[in-house]
């Protein structure tokens, strides 16, 4: 289990016990985080599950693929700590992870 904090646009924080093996996107959907859309269901095809990862935790989430980077680079709200949450797999190492909603996700 890993505790993940989801921070919405208006600053509201929700802490969720994420199950290992699922993606951060799935954790959000299964726990009523409604600012993560995930239109394509996690196929890395739509970029509607965009999150900002706290900078110091970025490394623990792994390297984004070329596909993921391309999906993100057209987003006006892309930052150096942008990730698609469907591409982050929950592991024990992610305990304490904090992800924040970009302006475009609400």
């Amino acid at each position, binding site marked *: 289990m890993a505790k993940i904090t989801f921070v919405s646009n208006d600053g509201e924080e929700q802490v969720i016990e994420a199950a290992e093996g*699922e993606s951060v996107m*799935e954790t959000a*959907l*299964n726990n*009523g985080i*409604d600012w993560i859309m995930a*239109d*394509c*269901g996690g*196929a*890395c*095809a*739509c*970029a509607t599950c965009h999150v900002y990862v706290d900078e110091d935790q970025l490394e623990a989430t792994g390297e984004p693929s*070329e*596909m993921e980077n*391309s*999906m993100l*680079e*057209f987003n006006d709200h892309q930052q150096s700590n942008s990730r698609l949450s469907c591409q982050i797999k929950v592991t024990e190492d992610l305990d304490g992870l904090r992800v924040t909603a970009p302006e475009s996700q609400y």
Partner: protein
Amino acid sequence: MATNMEKLVIIGSGQAAIQLSASLRQKKYDGRITMIGEEPYLAYQRPPLSKAFLKGELEEGRLFLKPQKFYDDKDIELISGARVEKVDTANKAVTIGGGTSYSYDKLVFATGTRPRMIPELEGAENVQVMRTLDDAKALKTQVDKLNHVTIVGGGYIGLEAAAVLRKMGVAVDVLERMPRLLARVIGEEISDYFKNLHEANGVNIRLGAEVQAYQKDGNSIKGVELNDGTTSKTDLILVGIGVLPNQELAAEAGIEVGNGIIVDENCETSVSGIYAIGDNALRPLEGQSEKLRLESVPNAIDMAETAARHILGLERPAYDPPWFWSDQYDTKIQTVGLFSEHTETFVRGDVAAGKFSVFYFKSETFLAVDSVNDPQSFMACKNILKMGLRLTSEAVQDQSKTMMDIFKELKTQKV
């Protein structure tokens, strides 16, 4: 009557239905929401059925779009395993099998589609389709025992299944009537690419193939004889020759139908207060002279959002050009726009390396792109179409620039 007494009934419990329910609640709709679905499940994702689920990479529990708790928390009533038998628009009520009736103020058809069947194969025990979770489960449980599968139809469903079956070591024949694969949905260059990709993975692709006879043994199909005289033995037939819209209920209720339940730009049918969303609906689309029926998740989501807003008296959402994706082996194809009226095509990228895009133009108007392992072109074009930017064929042919460069230039020109 107080607004919180409004009753909304949705016929269907798939992606469009749950998306509409979720969107309404997110926008503070305070009426009653009842979803009536034939399948015994919470709303689930269909795209992985022929991909990750069949392969065993995504278990059943992860297919569900929202957990039961979401339905409880958002006060969304789901009546599953129930078939609506009748819609009475005069008395504003729907009746399910067994006779229970539900009255409504607003009604939504999110009835989806059903696979077309080949009459001769109807009822045979080793014939499968791929539409529902039960279809996928049925195929999945048999895979270990199968040596050879014949897939009738070279469309997305058939090809995705072919890719998975090959990975599992099953011999696969794909029979396609047309002279190329995916003829209805993509251009020739991409058809050729997929033919090569599948052949490299050992799929026996038969184009221009007409079945002469299905050889039966009792209630089972044992072999397929083609018009060129060849016969192949098979263990299972997977039929993927397209779908039919579930519109009979609407038609019987006096609602206008064509190739789908006909709706306007707000997803409202010919009867006020009755909507149709998802792949059962025939809808107007920007730049298209004829209404179209689109079979995709993004279409279901877009129509659900559009209907939700109309129900709440809000403005229509911003234009979202139709888009689609498919995964086969390690290849991802992403497509945006509608290519059918194109007069010219331009290829960018490296076809041999399997990283390229085909751009479709109607004279000088950019219509659509098919991107193979090229998400940058897909995303650039999605934004270009969404923002109404004018992409020229000249710009597309200049391969010294990336699609990101081209997009940025167009964006600056507009400002």
